[in-house]
């Protein structure tokens, strides 16, 4: 005997089609996390991301206040709006975390990344690599007769673009710092 006499349709697909009010599209956000620079603080932040299944696209860390032993962690992450809110709340409740800023929603922000790009080649390819680097305002920081190392600073997209152009010209290796970001204005 079915004690509940369930209505058909209420069980498998849905009597209720409740859309998640925050939406389910993926967004990319840049977070600035201000932390006490104590042992293990980076492991705590990274462990939070891996343990809860969040994405890290880019991560930069350095002590920004040597006297106060504060570090700034800049994280670029992707997720639905609900997940992004969770990430911020989860970061915020870590004991060594002082502040979490979502630079993507808190107003305009400047984002920069530095990359070192090694390109090897001779002849026309070498000249073209030099010319393109010039267009991107990349500097040559090392050279041999068959190679250059360019230093480029810019948004991640600009760095991606230069790397893409260098690939057919003899790209050997790339080192990127990850994104540093700060809000515009005072």
């Amino acid at each position, binding site marked *: *005997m*079915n*004690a*509940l006499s*369930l209505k058909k349709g*209420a*069980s*498998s697909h*849905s*009597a*209720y*089609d*409740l859309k*998640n*009010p*925050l939406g389910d599209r993926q967004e990319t956000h840049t977070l600035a996390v201000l932390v*006490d620079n104590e*042992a*293990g603080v980076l*492991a*705590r932040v990274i*462990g939070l991301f891996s*343990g809860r299944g969040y994405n890290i696209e880019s991560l930069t860390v350095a002590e920004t206040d040597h006297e106060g032993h504060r570090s700034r962690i800049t994280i670029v992450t992707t997720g639905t709006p*609900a997940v992004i*809110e*969770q990430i911020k*709340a*989860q970061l*915020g*409740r*870590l*004991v*060594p975390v*002082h502040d979490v800023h979502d630079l993507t929603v808190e107003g305009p922000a400047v984002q920069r990344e530095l990359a070192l790009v090694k390109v090897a080649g001779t002849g026309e390819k070498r000249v073209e690599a030099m010319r393109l680097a010039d267009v991107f305002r990349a500097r040559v920081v090392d050279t041999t007769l068959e190679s250059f190392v360019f230093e480029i600073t810019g948004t991640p997209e600009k760095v991606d673009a230069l790397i893409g152009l260098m690939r057919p010209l003899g790209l050997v290796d790339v080192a990127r710092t990850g994104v540093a970001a700060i809000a515009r204005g005072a």
Partner: protein
Amino acid sequence: MTRRMTGAQMVVQALRDQGVDTVFGYPGGAVLPIYDEIFQQNDIRHILVRHEQGAAHAAEGYARSTGKPGVVLVTSGPGATNAVTGMTDALMDSIPLVILTGQVPTFLIGNDAFQEADTVGITRPCTKHNWLVKDPAQLSEVIHQAFHVATNGRPGPVLVDIPKDVQFATAAYSPPDKARIGHYQPRRKGDPAAILAAVEALERAERPVLYSGGGVINSGTEASRLLRELADSTGFPITSTLMGLGAYPASGKGWIGMLGMHGTYQANWTMHDCDFMLCIGARFDDRITGRLDAFSPGSIKVHVDIDPSSINKNIHVDIPIVGDVGTVLAEMLDLWKARGRVTASEAVAKWWQQIERWRGRNCLAYRNSDKVIKPQFALERLEAATRDRDRYITTEVGQHQMWAAQYLGFEEPNRWMTSGGLGTMGYGLPASIGVQIAHPEALVINVAGEASWLMNMQEMSTAVQYRLPVKQFILNNERLGMVRQWQQLLHGERYSSSWSEALPDFVKLAEAFGAKGILCSDPADLDEAIAEMLAYDGPVIFDCMVEKHENCFPMIPSGKAHNEMLLGEDATTDAIESGGAVLV
């Protein structure tokens, strides 16, 4: 005036200054200096457990039944790793614990030294925070900070790892009032605008429900008093999670029973059909919500929680209020009273008629037997025999735990200790020891299943050593009952490894430990046997042989909605569809 002392002396002094009277622990090489100091004083009592997991659960039992942090002291390496389950349990259930672990000396760290483990690394995700103290000058401050973090905001376990050379080194001691406790200060007061919005919604509510959780217990007895005042003065129905039982009395007029997977029919239907839900110190756990997209579809939801990460984690709420439950309840009540104590009382009365119809289903009814003891019957008799006593109940995990939640009535907070979030089998026996240590005169009963109970049965030796009259009430069905139930419902009745073969003779086992054993298998003998258990002044193992294939109902199968509950008489085959089968 600063006093200089060794690290080990600082540990004992800091515990004393924090008001600690009991430490649960187990000695070993890396904590010998601290044990030496404990030996030379009388303010702090050390309870020697038989396994470090038992120390952590005993400290949890102590903490849950007193509201004070539980303290654990174990050695490095295996001492610390054995305590990890207890820490994770405390993290999931928001129980304040301070765990002190010994560590190999600083100059050996990273050397794979004897009994070395990366304790702070291992416990980072299962503590609220942890510290490795390499500088003796920071030790006392860190311990004070540890107590601050464990007990403020959402409570939880914290760990301080202390290398052996730091325990021997001498430095200045900072008393608690001089110690810097850092910037960790979670907000306690609610946002006034959100509180106003919540009170306005409450005044208009026609089909309200109060949904309370463990946060009310954690906030302190004043929070429970305020919850009772709110429920009784509004006349709203109130339900609670497993963790929140006792915050509102089971005999109170607003009480509609526990909600969730094994909650009552009326509580789950009330949650499903309500138009206003006030969630107080609970976290919309999957055991509560069932299928997320069908969870209480027509209600305005207010969520009071001290942890911002609990807000909108599973369920989107309309009015979030971040703050301490007790503080926010006081603020809400003050505002509601000042505005004239308005409720939509006529509509609420009609709502109660509906709830009474649901209650009329009598969802906890079961078919009794005069041949075999039904587990529900055993708990009803236990309830009848102990209702009027100052009674503390702990449980293990499984069917017996749900039956205990359903068939025992909890009238006061801090009287119910169970592993809710982590679901740790083996929790109940050591927890009952911690409770009995904190309340030597009280009646402490661990409602257990035989399989769970065996997981930490070594702690019976602790109970005997400290003459703790804990009653181990084992509902013995010779099965891993909840596993068997799921296999029946979900895995085609293939009972893979879910029976308990080669069980010990529990009466002889009790006697071997120096305790009393009672065997009961006839319903007619049950009352007398329970009376014998209660009358005995000492630890008892009560082997209550029960029906082997009883299922725990009501049940909302995983992946189903609140209004799709299974009741006892229901056909139970294929109750979970393939989509729900992946859920736990």
